[in-house]
């Protein structure tokens, strides 16, 4: 078991990290990702976003499974019956099952984020490679260097930040002291409760500067 955990952790540590935090209009998600086509952050449902770090093909498979689960549930019941909590539990079971029963564990850490109409009710479910689920408030950091990055986010975080403040904080927290991250190195998306039914928005690299 320990070997498996080490293997997964090493795989995840090779990739770059990601920060998600509550801001005035919902949840702001920022990943270090030089690719503008292979996304780490994406839409699952009206108020639910997905983010993953680690091995791309593995978390992308989880993303598609999540979209299927959410769309099927919304079709069978109603749109308001689709919840992040149930989705996070499904993911936890899948990852736990793979961790104990398959040849190799998944080298991923994922986030399921959900907003409601009310500020302060943001939900961030952080799920590890072995199926551990953590329900986090305010902000969450995924990836290899998460402790150091978390420390930096914690220092700068305050409730009700504007999108610009959230971006600046995420950028400096991900970069650390010795590096600077350009717009092209980042992937930015948010769940914005002012955007109607589908709250997920992705910000193109060229538009980051105008946030």
């Amino acid at each position: 078991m320990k070997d498996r955990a080490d293997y997964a952790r090493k795989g995840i540590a090779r990739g770059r990290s990601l920060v998600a935090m509550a801001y005035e209009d919902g949840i702001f998600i920022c990943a270090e990702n030089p690719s503008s086509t292979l996304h780490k952050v994406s839409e699952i449902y009206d108020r639910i976003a997905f983010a993953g770090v680690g091995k791309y093909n593995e978390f992308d498979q989880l993303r598609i499974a999540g979209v299927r689960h959410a769309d099927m549930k919304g079709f069978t019941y109603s749109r308001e019956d689709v919840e992040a909590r149930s989705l996070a539990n499904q993911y936890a079971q899948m990852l736990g099952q793979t961790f104990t029963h398959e040849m190799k564990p998944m080298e991923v850490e994922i986030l399921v984020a959900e907003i409601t109409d009310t500020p302060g009710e943001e939900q961030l479910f952080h799920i590890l490679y072995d199926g551990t689920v953590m329900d986090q408030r305010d902000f969450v950091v995924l990836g290899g260097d998460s402790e150091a990055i978390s420390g930096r986010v914690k220092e700068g975080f305050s409730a009700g930040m504007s999108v610009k403040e959230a971006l600046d904080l995420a950028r400096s927290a991900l970069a650390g002291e010795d590096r600077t991250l350009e717009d092209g190195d980042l992937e930015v998306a948010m769940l914005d409760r002012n955007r109607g039914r589908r709250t997920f928005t992705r910000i193109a690299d060229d538009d980051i500067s105008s946030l």
Partner: protein
Amino acid sequence: MNISGFDPTDDPGSDFTRLVRQNGTEPFPALPGRNDGITANDITHGTTCVAVRYSDGVVIAGDRRATAGNLISHRSIEKVFAADRHSAVAIAGAAGPAVEMVRLFQLQLEHYEKVEGSPISLEGKANQLSQMLRGNLPAAMSGLAVVPIFAGYDLARESGRLFEYDITGGRYEEADYAATGSGSLHAETVIKVGYRRDMSADEAITLLCESLFQAADADSATGGADTLRGIYPIVATISSDGFERQTDEVVGSKFAEIADRFAENHRSDSGVQL
């Protein structure tokens, strides 16, 4: 409900209809027997829907009445739906299967967009609707026909486009205007006479309101403006800015103008008394 894992051979990919099927629900069930006892009088039907191209896109509209035989079964049913940000579908025919088909169609477009990371092309969306109609053919043959119009703004071509269908899934692109439902003959004639290429949005909205007014005047299954209850036909524009439903105030004022003009021409002191 489980997150379903599929073998590569039967993975539904980005096809939501197939996903629904593989989860054990048949979206277009074949009816038992042929037309056994079901007549048009038993099934709620929706009627006139129209669409027209204008300079910046398309306008699509539909009345609000649903009938079962000679009864009005609903006065405020909606027959025009946003399919996604840049397209809409309007339905005529058996209301139950039609509304269910629209729901599946909307989900299919959204599901594809989320799984693939980019939306289907407008032509692709029109084809998807075609395939759903083909799936509904057995039901259509036993009396539950659905005949939609699909309208959208093609972002690649930068223009509005219109598609008409038949019950077999036949798809016919129209250059200027489209109409479906029992009042479509009257509505289409009004549009044909008043149509000009490169109308403004406002002119196109006025023309469609006029066509629905005349259809409602001649066809008992088509509803007009219900000023008693404040129920007005649905009118929506689709341009590069996306789908935008016109408010009841806008549509109501168009109908009020048409009704005033109509009343003016039919006042008993203005000509022959019947």
